């Protein structure tokens, strides 16, 4: 059944939001999340610089803050704290804006979740600082950290669940009051993201609660390492895909408005979201291509699943360039590529996410390399992989978030983006781009030559073959330095826009669909059905390997402190 399109409702919402402006209570929530995120970026970036300089061979870290402590904190700060807080801050702002404000009850839930996450994070940080938890952000058993570390993780997960429940309540409430209408597109993305967050964290919760905590407390003697790794990657893989999906939401919904165009086909956009939600979690197995104990046919089928996730990504690439082309042509761009020049290159709200998208081309290609068993044999656990995820996360995701910050922060703070700040943003974008290209290119190359990841500086006794890596590792140090400059500019920009920029109204840019588009079938809104389909896919993918790992398990491993 098709429902006449929701342009009318978004018009009404827009009107109410224009009259009332941003809801200040809701804005405070989002601003808190964004503040934590950018502080995490600053700290994480600083640690990243320490790592980069260490690996370049110019900085020896002191015993009270060794390389692996730094690396654990860097990974957690950026991939768990910063990304999650940005995603939540952004989507809660989106829910407030498109659903006509958060419910008071949801606001309370959001604050509870916020403090649970912060509390959890404090518990995690203490043992890291004491050098009792240098297990990296993947905390693979049999390496065992101080139990406090894992209790902290539990609170972080509980916080995520609180926020997801809050989002679901608000969405359900809106739908009850807007029978038969499609959820506004940004709220639709938010729903998908929170569904995935619950799904992903469920796996890590099982790993931590039922396997690791009893084991580090000494209630059980051994742990099944393969099962733990499998549960971890169901989470870890999905988490980074959630950050990616968040960035994608801005590409579909926000960027077209920023460049003055319409967004891509509503129906297909929603199909992309649903496909990414259903197929995502099972992709976790591609992080275990080199793991023993998973039979070849299973690995083969999972490669198939991973590449299937590539399909919606290709649709996204197509969609974006179509939107750009249409908009450029409407603005008078002529010829095959004339439209390209008509895009607002001087606008940081466009420039940063555009470079982010462009970075996904090599990043996605690298991902396909890593999904291929034979090629992964060469690059697995080398610096190549680190180069890869600094492209995907460090460029594609993070630069989109940076682009978002230049309108979202002023919008929430009732301030404006000044031309000077825009210029600073452009400079920041350029520095970050150059730094990341240098760093990730040299990481990829050093990795191809065999330089392992997660290894503090060493010349391997001046062994000749490994000395060839050093020039590339020096380049990593140079890239890292540029990146930290960009981090400082970005964090300065965010807090300046939050507290000091001139007062004024900044719009929350949400693009409309093209006039005359065929209405979207109502089917897309049946989230209950999509969740069940997702669960069936997960069941099918996990039952086989997990049964095998549990039934044919080795004796298991006691905890080790390897550092």
């Amino acid at each position, binding site marked *: 059944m098709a429902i006449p399109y929701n342009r009318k409702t978004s018009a009404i919402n827009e009107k109410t939001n224009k009259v009332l402006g941003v809801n200040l209570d809701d804005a405070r929530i989002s601003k808190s999340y964004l503040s934590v995120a950018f502080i995490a970026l600053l700290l994480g970036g600083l640690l990243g610089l320490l790592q980069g300089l260490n690996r370049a061979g110019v900085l020896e870290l002191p015993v009270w803050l060794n390389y692996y402590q730094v690396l654990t904190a860097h990974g957690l700060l950026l991939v768990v704290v910063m990304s999650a807080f940005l995603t939540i801050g952004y989507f809660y702002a989106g829910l407030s804006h498109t659903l006509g404000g958060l419910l008071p009850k949801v606001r309370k839930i959001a604050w509870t979740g916020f403090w649970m996450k912060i509390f959890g994070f404090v518990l995690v940080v203490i043992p890291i600082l004491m050098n009792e938890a240098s297990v990296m952000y993947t905390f693979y058993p049999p390496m065992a950290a101080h139990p406090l570390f894992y209790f902290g993780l539990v609170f972080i997960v509980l916080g995520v669940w609180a926020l997801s429940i809050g989002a679901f309540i608000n969405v*359900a409430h809106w*739908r*009850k009051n807007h*029978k*038969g209408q499609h959820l506004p597109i940004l709220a639709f993305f938010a729903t998908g993201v929170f569904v995935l967050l619950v799904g992903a964290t469920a796996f890590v919760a099982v790993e931590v609660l039922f396997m690791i905590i009893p084991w580090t407390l000494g209630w059980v003697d051994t742990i099944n390492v393969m099962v733990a790794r499998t549960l971890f990657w169901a989470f870890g893989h999905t988490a980074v895909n959630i950050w990616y999906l968040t960035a994608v939401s801005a590409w579909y919904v926000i960027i077209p408005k920023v460049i003055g165009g319409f967004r891509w086909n509503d129906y297909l956009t929603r199909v992309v979201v649903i496909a990414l939600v259903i197929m995502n979690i099972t992709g976790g197995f591609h992080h275990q291509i080199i793991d023993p104990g998973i039979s070849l*046919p299973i690995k*083969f*089928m999972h490669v198939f699943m991973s590449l299937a996730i590539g399909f919606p990504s290709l649709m996204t690439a197509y969609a974006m360039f179509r939107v750009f082309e249409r908009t450029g042509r409407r603005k008078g761009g002529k010829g095959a590529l004339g439209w390209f020049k008509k895009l607002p290159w001087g606008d940081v709200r466009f420039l940063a996410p555009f470079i982010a998208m462009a970075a996904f081309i090599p990043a996605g290609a690298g991902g396909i390399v890593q999904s291929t068993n034979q090629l992964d044999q060469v690059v697995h656990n080398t610096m190549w992989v680190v180069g890869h995820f600094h492209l995907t996360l460090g460029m594609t995701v993070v630069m989109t978030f940076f682009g978002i910050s230049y309108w979202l922060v002023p919008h929430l703070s009732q301030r404006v983006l000044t031309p000077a700040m825009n210029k600073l943003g452009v400079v920041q974008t350029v520095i970050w781009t150059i730094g990341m290209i240098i760093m990730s290119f040299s990481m990829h190359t050093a990795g191809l030559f065999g330089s392992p990841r997660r290894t503090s500086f060493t010349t391997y006794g001046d062994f000749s073959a490994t000395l060839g890596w050093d020039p590339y590792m020096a380049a990593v140090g140079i890239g890292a330095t540029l990146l930290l400059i960009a981090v400082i500019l970005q964090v300065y920009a965010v807090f300046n826009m939050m507290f000091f920029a001139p007062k004024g109204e900044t719009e929350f840019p949400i693009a409309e669909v093209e006039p005359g588009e065929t209405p979207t079938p*109502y089917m897309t*809104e049946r989230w*209950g*059905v999509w*969740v*069940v389909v997702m*669960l*069936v896919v997960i*069941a*099918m993918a996990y*039952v*086989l390997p997990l*049964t*095998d790992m549990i*039934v*044919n398990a080795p004796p298991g491993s006691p905890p080790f402190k390897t550092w």
Partner: protein
Amino acid sequence: MTQFIYGLLLYIFLMLPPVADLVESIMITHMHMQMPLLVISGMLMGGILKSRFPRFFEKWNSNGIPGITLFMIIVIYWTIPRTMDEALTLQSVEIWKFISLPFLAGIPLRDSWKKLSEAGKNIIIIIFTIKYFGMGALYIWTPDQLCNNYLLIDQLTLGWGFVTTAICLVIYLVYTYTVDPSEYE
């Protein structure tokens, strides 16, 4: 027409010897991947038949019950351990599998599902839920090897596959029972 082509491509893909060998080499993918995909290929191909021969379907399957009964018979038949074993040993049974699942289960399912009432649909799902729990229990608890071609561990895995699928069906039933779509749609 495009649906028909996708269905046909899927059907041919499943028939390719390496694909068939791979999925049939593991018990759970044989039953929970190859067989449902065969049904789906039939559903995709069925649309064109429905539009070509509307009278036939109207005459024989006006309320959906004959079609869904045929579907149930075929599907239940293929969850019997013995039939899977035979498909691996006898070429003729393998061919029968590739014909019966798409054409005698997929097509009737497509034609019947929309014709059933809400209650009818839920009854079918409940039947499958019970059956899946039962099959799960059977495969998990029997100490004997039920198929000549598959090991005990394969059997156990399939058992858990049935149980997890049944749990998903229960979640779906709870969802349809507790969430009233008329509040939202």
